[in-house]
């Protein structure tokens, strides 16, 4: 047979098509909101806030969606790593009050980095324990997974209660991150939100580099698609999974620190509150899809911020409505993960 025959028989598709519709939907939501809000400066403020919130939610949700993709494990305890991360930042903030209130930008950045480091280390460690103790015995049993991970969440939340007390704790932003920044006539954007966007983008870029440029990243992506074949190539999917689980927990902890500063109040239940948003995000995005997770985070954050301004009482309800609309359009989420 000649090679020419093969060429005619198999038309090569030019390039992997990017599905633009969900991205357009996100932009459309922002555009439609403008006339409803009426004021450009308010709209800019809300949109920047949504970007910041979206990036934070993405950081927290990415671990959950990858863990599900890799091992079909749904972790209802994921929210508690957010609380753990947020509360661990207290361990840094309390002794280093001077750094927080210092006008020195270096000290401000230093304390933020320390918070992030401690939070990620602690929640990563909790993640490792959680995987061993809570999740390992219930692989491939969704019903029990939901029950025990929810139980684990309660236990760790209660432990936070024991050590930090139940009442909400107010935290102060480092000196230079307080207040707003004027970026145009009548348009002020809070500094911390810009910082959150910067950190969020940095984490996203780093994650994309790891997933697309490293061998580990290739293994994770391959494992999400077909864990069995990854094993048949000689890799231990369990190890990859534990690694992703710990990394996902650490990222949830990072998100917890950022969310804590965003709200400037810590509550024990904050993780569970955010978990609800995260679930909406991963369902909208498509369970297991990292790109879907990003778009889902942005959509949820935009809708949450716009409705919080337009009709605050229905903020969460509007996100559920968004989820229902998306599920009607694409029942598997915006970017369904093709499983073998």
């Amino acid at each position, binding site marked *: *047979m000649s*090679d020419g*025959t*093969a*060429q005619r*028989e*198999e*038309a*090569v*598709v030019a*390039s*992997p098509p990017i599905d633009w519709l969900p991205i357009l939907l996100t932009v459309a939501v922002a555009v439609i909101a403008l006339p409803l809000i009426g004021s450009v400066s308010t709209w800019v403020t809300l949109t920047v806030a949504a970007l910041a919130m979206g990036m934070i939610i993405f950081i927290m949700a990415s671990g959950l969606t990858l863990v599900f993709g890799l091992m079909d494990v749904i972790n209802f305890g994921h929210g508690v790593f957010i609380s753990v991360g947020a509360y661990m930042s207290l361990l840094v903030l309390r002794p280093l009050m001077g750094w927080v209130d210092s006008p020195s930008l270096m000290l401000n950045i230093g304390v933020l980095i320390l918070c992030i480091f401690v939070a990620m280390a602690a929640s990563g460690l909790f993640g490792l324990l959680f995987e061993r103790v809570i999740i390992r015995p219930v692989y491939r049993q969704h019903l029990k997974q939901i029950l025990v991970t929810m139980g684990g969440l309660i236990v760790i939340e209660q432990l936070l209660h024991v050590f930090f007390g139940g009442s909400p704790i107010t935290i102060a932003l480092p000196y230079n991150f307080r207040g707003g920044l004027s970026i145009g006539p009548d348009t002020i954007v809070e500094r911390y939100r810009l910082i959150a966007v910067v950190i969020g983008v940095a984490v996203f870029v780093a994650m994309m580099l790891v997933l697309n440029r490293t*061998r580990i990243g*290739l*293994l994770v*992506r*391959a494992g*999400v*698609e*077909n864990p*069995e*074949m*990854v*094993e*048949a*190539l*000689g*890799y*231990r*999917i369990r190890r990859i999974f534990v690694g992703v689980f710990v990394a996902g927990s650490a990222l949830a902890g990072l998100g917890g620190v950022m969310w804590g500063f965003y709200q400037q109040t810590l509550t024990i239940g904050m993780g569970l509150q955010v978990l609800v948003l995260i679930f909406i995000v991963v369902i909208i995005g498509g369970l297991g899809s990292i790109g879907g997770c990003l778009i889902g985070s942005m959509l949820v954050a935009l809708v949450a911020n716009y409705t919080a301004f337009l009709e605050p009482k229905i903020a969460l309800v509007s996100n559920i409505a968004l989820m229902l609309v998306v599920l009607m359009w694409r029942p598997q989420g915006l970017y369904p993960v*093709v499983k*073998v």
Partner: protein
Amino acid sequence: MSEPLLTLEGVHTHIGRYHILQGVDFAVPRGSFTVLLGRNGAGKTTTLRTIMGLWKASRGSIRFAGQDLAARPTPEIAASGIAYVPENMSVFSGLTVRENLILAARSGKIDDTRLEWIFSLFPAMQRFFGLAAGTLSGGQKQMLAISRALIEPRDLILIDEPTKGLAPAIVANMIKAFREVKNAGTTVLLVEQNFMAAKMLGDSVAVMDDGRVVHRGAMAELAADHALQHRLLGLHMEVHQ
């Protein structure tokens, strides 16, 4: 002949409550091309999956190069030198062809001379080397799946129905490539429904039915004995003529 590379003795496999393999015995001699034939549901795919450890054998022994594989986890079995090309090809569709091959090369780097060799087997691969595997056609995916098994030297390659659903021209190309692989001295265990392809490639043959091996022998022998073919394989050969 020396000890076979792979020997299955009395292998039983249960999937859930179903007893699929009910005592499978056969051997794959070193350097040979062995074909596993049999009708749909005879247990051929289950046999390959059991060798890979993707289903656990509930009884029996699977010996490969002097070690018992039956109780070992899949990654260890793969690392001991067995490559597997499953029936559905299982290419990672979100990864490019190149990335698929990088993962298959466990050392982390693609060996250039082997890649050249693969390109000589499947010249079309060069054209879609940079594309996402999900965008490939069925035949191209099959080429990739086989290349993934060839990118590193392996002692044994298990291939499950590579010609299924492919156009005749591509099947011919595939057979040509398998000949090359065979000439390079790699031991192959091929599951095949297409008797013509099997006849052209196989040195030895095992025929399965109802979870057991019902015939073992040289391929030439089976190819010459039409009555035996008819008894073992029914109408399959006519279908594929």
